[in-house]
């Protein structure tokens, strides 16, 4: 099924009585079970006002189209959307609806915010086949409940997005990255905390450790003069051992962090862990103890990408055991089909009851229950 507009989608959902596999571009997650319902027919730009930093698009609009329209005006989506095709082994074209449904955010999330923070409004069709609009196209809007943000990250479990309205930002003139080599995870996390706590507006703080070649990186973006100034000040503050890389190298480096490129060709279960940044070293010590599994720390250590062996529960017990003690959550992003772990982190029972209640309220027929 491939509805060409919202009304057709509503008809389909009103009539449906068995689980559906709703697909945007099919780039981000494993397909759900059920009859395939594609959103790509509902595409196109609805409105773009560069002077108001606002863009409205139908949910099936290819992300690349939106990015190129924005680039034409020197603007961008600031939450730095990861391209997951390499990591997931998927092909196809990412859609803006899928990006929002997944709350897909990259390295800049630590400073600028996540996809949900740039979402101004949505239209969607719930599991009853009701068309719902929420939010709007203005930056400040507290009229009624914020269902738009609830839809962000819900991965289609409450309804199918048909239109999203986003705040966009000026693209920076240039960027630079400070790099230090050979830091331990705890040294790196401390250094990143210092940088992120400085007034120099660090828009990326990551640490990779692939085969004993640890690199810690700090990104600065903005107007040319300002980037030069802040890079200099930050380097002075960080002390010896930090080298400056120019715009081109910097951009390539952060694309790699954004897309988790180093796990792309590597076998294993890929986990995305969110925790308090300063807990990262202890967490890594707990989960890497046996096999020294490779890790990529983003968000100053607040997000860790891990690749664990594809066996048994894919490391779920180890990871989630450590998080039960430290706090935070782990999502299984990619795994071999025989890995037994739950994709989503278990919620406390009272919270799970609310989430369940919402899913029943918006999707009483269970059409979206198959969503991975």
């Amino acid at each position, binding site marked *: 099924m491939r509805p060409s507009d919202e009304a057709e989608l509503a008809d389909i959902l009103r009539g449906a009585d068995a689980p559906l596999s709703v697909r945007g571009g099919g780039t981000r997650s494993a397909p759900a079970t059920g009859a395939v319902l594609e959103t790509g027919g509902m595409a196109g730009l609805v409105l773009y006002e560069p002077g108001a930093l606002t863009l409205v698009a139908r949910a099936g609009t290819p992300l690349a189209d939106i990015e190129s329209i924005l680039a034409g005006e020197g603007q961008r989506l600031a939450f730095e959307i990861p391209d997951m095709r390499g990591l997931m082994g998927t092909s196809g074209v990412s859609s803006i609806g899928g990006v929002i449904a997944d709350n897909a955010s990259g390295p800049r999330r630590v400073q600028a915010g996540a996809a949900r923070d740039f979402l101004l409004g949505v239209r969607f069709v719930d599991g009853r086949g009701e068309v719902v609009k929420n939010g709007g196209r203005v930056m400040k809007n507290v009229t009624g409940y914020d269902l738009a943000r609830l839809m962000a990250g819900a991965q289609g479990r409450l309804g199918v997005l048909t239109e999203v309205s986003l705040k966009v930002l000026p693209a920076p003139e240039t960027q630079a990255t400070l790099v230090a080599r050979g830091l331990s995870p705890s040294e790196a996390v401390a250094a990143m905390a210092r940088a992120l706590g400085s007034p120099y507006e660090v828009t990326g703080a990551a640490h990779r450790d692939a085969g004993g070649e640890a690199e810690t990186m700090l990104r600065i973006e903005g107007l040319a003069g300002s980037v030069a100034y802040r890079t200099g000040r930050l380097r002075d503050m960080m002390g010896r051992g930090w080298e400056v890389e120019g715009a081109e190298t910097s951009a390539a480096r952060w694309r790699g962090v954004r897309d988790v490129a180093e796990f792309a060709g590597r076998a294993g279960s890929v986990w995305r862990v969110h925790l308090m940044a300063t807990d990262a070293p202890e967490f890594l010590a707990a989960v890497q103890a046996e096999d020294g599994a490779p890790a990529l720390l983003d968000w100053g250590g607040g997000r860790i990408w891990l690749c664990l062996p594809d066996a048994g529960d894919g490391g779920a017990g180890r990871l989630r055991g450590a998080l039960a003690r430290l706090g935070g959550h782990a999502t299984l992003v990619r795994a071999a089909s025989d890995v037994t772990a739950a994709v989503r982190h278990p919620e406390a029972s009272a919270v799970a009851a609310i989430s369940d209640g919402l899913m029943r*309220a918006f999707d009483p027929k269970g059409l979206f229950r198959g969503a991975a």
Partner: protein
Amino acid sequence: MELPPADARILARRAAILAGLSAILPRDAVIADPHELKAYECDALTAYRCLPLAAVLPRTTDEVAAVLRFAHAEGVPVVPRGAGTSLAGGSMPTSDSIILGVARMNAVLQTDFDNRFVRVQTGRTNLSVTGAVEGEGFFYAPDPSSQLACAIAGNIAMNSGGAHCLKYGVTTNNLLGVRMVLMDGTVVDLGGPWMDAPGLDLLAVVCGSEGQLGIVTEAWLRILPKPEGARPVLMGFDSNEVAGACVADIIRAGILPVAIEFMDRPCIRACEDFAHAGYPDCEALLIVEVEGSPAEIDEQLARILAIARTHNPVALRESTSEEESKKIWLGRKSAFGAMGNINDYMCLDGTIPVSALPQVLKRIGEMSAEFGLDVANVFHAGDGNMHPLILFDANKPGDLERCEAFGAAILRLCVEVGGCLTGEHGVGIEKRDLMEVQFAPADLQAQMRVKDVFDPKWLLNPAKVFPLHVSAGRRAA
């Protein structure tokens, strides 16, 4: 303003309910004396008042849970209250409800500069959150103009904004987690000192739900390093259209000022008479502020001034000292006081797409003549959040009603041009009956289904947000 009729069965049991509350809470935490209850009959929307059944001021999350468990069992509505500064009547009680105030829960529980968050009890005032972290060079970004008095609890309930949202966002963008008590007394943690939700983003829908889903007792708030400095520039133009075009050009040029404030002639004149800030005599005035080191500020301001000059400003004043910066902001910050000096006023809070600014201001001017009431406009121009101030005389029969009708007409206009009824104050009771202007029945049903899940008996702040005839079936159930 219509309120649901009081439940006579609850009023009849007042003594027993008070006894029940007194058994749960320390003696000084239960307020039953009608004179003392006067303090809780309204919030900052003072036109509407009603004495509650009782007010309670718990000191801990456990006490909040005990009160809610009790009220839930008794079927008594509960109206949460932060500092009582709501301009929308968000914490206005009904006569059969218990006010639950969190004002005594105002401790800072944890400051963590490495992870850049602070955990506070929600009775703490907005400004004192910054006060707790500024010694280390940090601040809490959302800055509603009531920040000296307003509580974090209310900020979360209303998803409060402020003047610096263009760069830093509003409450929801700076809230990492909450500890919240559900109406049945269950305590849940949503989020925490890490980013993003593992499942549904329940925190997102709690923020801005006007105290209808639960009572938030603790919050993890994101704190940010203070910029090295900030400096405003003041620009005067001879028409609203030109000022609006200048704002769009600045934004299009790739500069993101931390604030862009807009004032129209009536507002400029009133502020000037009141504060003597030295504002030029012109149709429209912009205050644009940028942040960074002195050199970065120079770089950004040079570009902004070059853009402004292409619009033939009648005045252009760049601050060269702390003193001058203060003076530029002085008039703007005293806008509400200046209006209060002239007359009674009603402050609106609609948001419009920035591009609709000239058209909307023109229409408001025409309506001002039609309604026979003066209006002054002050406006967060970067994000489209308007605060038209309608002047009226509360002692003149019919003036308040005329003012309300004018206000409603302006808010309808905001929706018509693609905006919304409220940008940062919330719906409360004030805009409750206008919700159908912005939302179709299915939109409101979807929102109410969320409340059904969190508060199935509709006991938390039930008479707010949704038009009474729309929520009637649920409240009666």
